């Protein structure tokens, strides 16, 4: 019998719990529907926003950033488009107002030119150094070969004629079961 009473109590508490839960859930759902009703940019605004940096969340573009400042910027873009400006004019407006750093793609002039030039310069320097090192190393080598040839070496020719295809013979040698 105690089981019955307990059961009854459980269902009663359960009803209360369900009530509380449904209050919670519905208030959640309502607030969830209310929140995040940020005005939505249209497609052209979005295209332009993609080419601008978000002023608040660094490292992201304006289009993907949901903050309030970004929304204001997007509204500004939309307002300018509605005034009949085209994409270039809108971008030019933002560049004139906030400087070139507002653009997703840093301009290849001014301070940011360094950014574009540095990797190219580094690559040139790296390859230059490696080229010089290789050239010097092979110079030393050819000097050695010249000496070897002078001191009497028909060996080189004999060596070359051993295998018709050095690549394949090398490979066969390497893959051969050595055990």
């Amino acid at each position, binding site marked *: 019998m105690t089981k019955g009473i307990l059961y009854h109590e459980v269902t009663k508490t359960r009803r209360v719990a369900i009530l509380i839960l449904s209050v919670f859930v519905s208030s959640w759902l309502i607030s*969830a529907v209310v929140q*995040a009703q940020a005005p939505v940019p249209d497609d052209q605004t979005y295209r332009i926003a993609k080419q601008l940096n978000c002023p608040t969340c660094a490292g992201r573009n304006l*289009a993907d950033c949901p903050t309030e400042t970004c929304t204001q910027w997007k509204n500004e873009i939309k307002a300018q488009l509605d005034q009949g400006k085209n994409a270039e004019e809108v971008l030019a407006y933002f560049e004139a107002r906030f400087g070139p750093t507002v653009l997703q793609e840093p301009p290849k002039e001014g301070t940011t030119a360094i950014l574009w030039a540095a990797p190219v310069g580094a690559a040139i320097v790296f390859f230059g150094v490696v080229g010089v090192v*290789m050239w010097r190393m092979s110079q030393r080598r050819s000097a050695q070969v010249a000496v070897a040839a002078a001191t009497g070496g028909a060996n080189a020719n004999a060596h070359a004629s051993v295998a018709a295809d050095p690549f394949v013979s090398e490979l066969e040698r390497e893959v051969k079961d050595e055990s």
Partner: protein
Amino acid sequence: MFTDLGHLAVIFAFAACLYAAIISPLGAARNDDRLVQSGRLAAFMTLPLVLIGCLGLWFALITHDFGVQYVASVSNLATPLFYRITALWGSQNGSILFWCLIMAAFVAAAMAKEWKEDKPLLPYVTMTMALVLGFFIFVQLFLTNAFVRYDFPPQDGRGLNPLLRHPGMIIHPPMLYAGYTGLLVPFAFCVASLLARRTDNLWLRSSRRWTLVGWAFLAAGLLLGGRWAHDVLGWGGYWGWDPSENKPFITWLIATAFLHSAMIQEKRGMFKNWNVFLMMLTFASMFFGTAFIRSGLLTSVHAFAASDIGPFFMGAMLIILAACAVLWLTRLDTLKSEHKLDSAFSREGIFLIQNVLFLSTAFTVFIGTMFPILSEAITGQKITVGPPYYDQVAGPQMAALVLLMGVAPLLAWHKASGQTVWRQMIGPVVFGVVVMVGLFIIGVRQALPLLGFGLCAYTLAQTVMEYVRGVSARVKSMGEGVPTALLRLAQKNQRRYGGYLVHIGVVLLAIGAIGKGFYGTDVIRNVAINESFTVGDYTFTYRGIRPVPCEFDDCQTVQGMLLITNAAGQTIGSAFPNRDYYPAQEHTATIPEITGTFNEEVYVLLGGWENNGATASFQVYINPLINWIWVGGIVVILGFFVAFWPPTDREPSTVRGPARRAAGAPAK
């Protein structure tokens, strides 16, 4: 109670590091093996000690001990058990403790290994590792202590950062940590070889497998991070050139260069100083990246909040750089090459070019990541370097690396013959051209992706040919069947054929990147109920929004409903992207619906809505070939396993193939 015990254990771990760092070189100086072994044991003991520390913090997390500040900052009563466990690395302080745990695991593994001919290096390896681990434990204890308690414990915690509630995010940080800390082992061997003046190949032989482990963990961490960004961050892509991704990527690039140039030293005894330099650079980049991400100097979607550990890390960084430079320069004379470069047109020559390309790519990523900070410091201008920069500057360099992958394996060591190389090349070149013509016919008309796909096809064919040539050579010379030959081939040359498998994976990755990069489209559309919009071949019809239960107790989810039809008007599916709102953190997560086919992913985000869903906006990405990236990533990891799997043959692994030939033993 347990938590305070954990705190105590970490303090002991710090003491153990100090002891090991002092006693080991002392043992070496006095030539007293007992001291060396004592230091070794002390360094080993850091693992159980730090583990007790982590268990202590885990205990606090699991039991909702909000008296511990860290627990209150990363969890609350609603946090499920699974995420309470992973909250250990959910924020700065705990993650440094967790970092110490993984690093201690590598230290203990290195200490526990069998020390044979590399025994002279032991005291210095112990010392280097104990110093680096000690540094991080010091940071944990004195700057970012995770065990600090509140005077008055709060009733409930703040909850885990919603962004971190994803399986990818759960595995991604430990993977990256393992990658970073794993590279401590080869670095310690490298430093030890210089300190012990054993500048032969000893350190490379002992540490090359460790490098591979760190490298593979980094690769896996980067891939999982990409997957996480794709699934949770709503990036629409897999890679955003975010500083927190760039730093490990830089380290990965340098480590890859090292893995290749280490081969030159092993086979030819050349470029020893270069390898030492690369290993030091790998470690420095790892340390630098950690410092920057953790000090909050870089702003990024998932860097840690600003903190005052920056100057401390920078100071340590300078000391490490100075120590490495001094060590390297004073040992330069002993790091001479054993051989001269026979020809630039050789395997070693092309490896050198490839090394330079890896470094210049790493430098490009580095300068792009650092430029905003430099620019702000010098001119006060806040600059963001976006993906267009990396795509234009790093992109071509990476394409060149793909080309080298297709050429380098053909060049013989010493000196390659142009004729032989060309004969091997012609087939794959024809294949690449055929693929390009085929793609042109089916409508790929842009020059760059056409070239890119052709290049990938060539390199893929060339790499597959490596297997074909190897197998047929075995079939011919050993009379084996094809499957046996393939298996034996990989068994006998694990590193080579594992490496080629990695190459194949990278080519697949490149194909995915080209597809997504050049043919990915995305639009954002605002639609009313039952209104349709078209993207590519797909038509999306808006059917309304609805609230759905959220996976977590502390969030509210609204789901958008879209019907997808194809060009012929047939229904091919539906999309239900979510927006999760976390009131406590005031955070909104856009969880995409990912559908479509293997070759063309359809990625739908719910942007927002008005008037209770009368209109809503959706962001739709069409991502062609993006799935090739995940497949390529899996192949890369498989390749690692082939290369790393413990050798099964009877010969001892140290005198296999190449080394034996170098030692002059004839092949039977």
